């Protein structure tokens, strides 16, 4: 299944896949991140429950230096 993460297409071998599994797959476990899926925030508490669908568009963000 293909999804789009931060503007880049990503091919997932495992399907179905939860948001949490994607986070693990991307080696972002333990990192302070926030995720938006198709325009809506996925609360951290729901990472285990939310199952990704083909064509999902995700934004994964963190805090960086800025003014």
């Amino acid at each position: 299944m293909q999804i789009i993460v931060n503007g880049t297409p990503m091919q997932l071998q495992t399907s179905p896949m939860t948001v949490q599994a994607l986070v693990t797959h991307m080696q972002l476990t333990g990192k302070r991140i926030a995720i938006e899926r198709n325009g809506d925030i996925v609360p951290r508490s729901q990472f285990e429950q939310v199952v990704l669908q083909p064509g999902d568009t995700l934004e994964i963000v963190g805090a960086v230096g800025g003014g």
Partner: protein
Amino acid sequence: MSDSLHIAGKAYGSRLLVGTGKYKDFTETRAAIDASGAEIVTVAIRRTNIGQHANEPSLLDVLPPSEFTYLPNTAGCYSADEAVRTLRLARELLDDHRLVKLEVLGDPNTLYPNVTETLAAAKTLVKEGFDVMVYTSDDPIIAKQLEDLGCVAVMPLASLIGSGMGILNPWNLQIIIENANIPVLVDAGVGCASDAAIAMELGCAGVLMNTAIAAAKDPVRMAGAMKKAIEAGRESFLAGRMAKKLYSASPSSPTTGMIG
């Protein structure tokens, strides 16, 4: 210290707010912020680098949210929708954090704010429970409208972002300060310590800066200079300056008891 800065129900000892961008590395970021004495630090929200090393330090490791009040910004947003989306992500990222810096730009060359989009975003964010510190132009009418919408602080520019041109229109800032019932902070344009002191002498509640420190030849030293300037400017404002006169026939030394 009773003269603290109150924003959204919290008191801060420092009236200097600093950005965390443009530093050489995290060591310099931390050293400069320590030297500035700032308690509130702005951060940007950006896409995580896919494939970055898992154990690479992050800004949050260098500036732990337990030590600083984070002020996530909407830098780089050109519409109300983008800004609102960014801050919703920031709220989730920082565990239901409500204090935010709203800025909506109108032009990539000058980075001049787009006030109509800023007003629209402020309205939505206030409704969603955010405590909005809002960057805007030095237009007193817009500043008042942002206050009326429920923003917790209004932050007019001294001059354009990153320009270091200093305070170009002290008269507008003065009108904004006189009319406001919420803290007014100068955000953007400060270039050196005297600019910061002048902002405080005008009666600003605080100053937010990034480039003036980060782009100095010695950022850590400039951070210390800014801390002193903010404190001196505040004290000078509270002390109340003497009246300006073109000349005075009242010298500081006695006019009697002269020799001869």
